């Protein structure tokens, strides 16, 4: 019962985050929305696993924490310097 409430709360939060991702006037708002969407999905997978009695979903949650971290850093790196790998000769220009 309480788990169902938590699931619904997380789903509502995810929907609101999606709205921000579509609306967000700047690109940073969208990156922020994607990042928190990722964390919310991780929590949702944990709670849903407990709700249905199948804790195997925790592996997916663990995986997605790491993957969203790498993705966010890649996106920010790309936004910062235009490429994902910076070389010294490109930085001096």
């Amino acid at each position, binding site marked *: 019962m309480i788990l169902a409430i938590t699931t619904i709360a997380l789903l*509502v939060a995810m929907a609101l985050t999606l709205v921000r991702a579509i609306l967000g006037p700047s690109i940073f708002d969208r990156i922020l929305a994607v990042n928190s969407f990722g964390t919310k999905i991780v929590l949702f997978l944990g709670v849903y696993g407990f709700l249905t009695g199948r804790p195997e979903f925790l592996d997916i949650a663990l995986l997605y924490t790491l993957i969203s971290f790498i993705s966010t850093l890649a996106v920010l790196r790309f936004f910062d310097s235009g490429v994902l790998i910076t070389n010294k000769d490109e930085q001096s220009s």
Partner: protein
Amino acid sequence: MWDLILLYTSNVSLILGSFLSLSLGLGLIRFPDFYSRMHAAGVADTLCAGLIVFGLSLQSGFNLVTLKLYLILLFIWFTSPTSSFTLANTAYRAGHGVDKTSEEESSSKS
């Protein structure tokens, strides 16, 4: 008796966590500025995750599932603040929402 205490603690913790996540959703929509939205997201990513995982782990006993839950919490606590910091840093250096005149005033005063 002990089970009942565990159950109540975990329920309270889950309810608090869901309240925090609702406040995150609301905050993302209603706050006027990027940096204030990031504050809402940062609170939710760390405290809400901690409360929910703590509540879940009290319900599952002392086995591998609890260990995985705490691993997830550890990874979230390591990576989410770093992502927030990187995002804020990049946004600030790209000049997003920074008022140029107030910067000049503060640098001339110091």
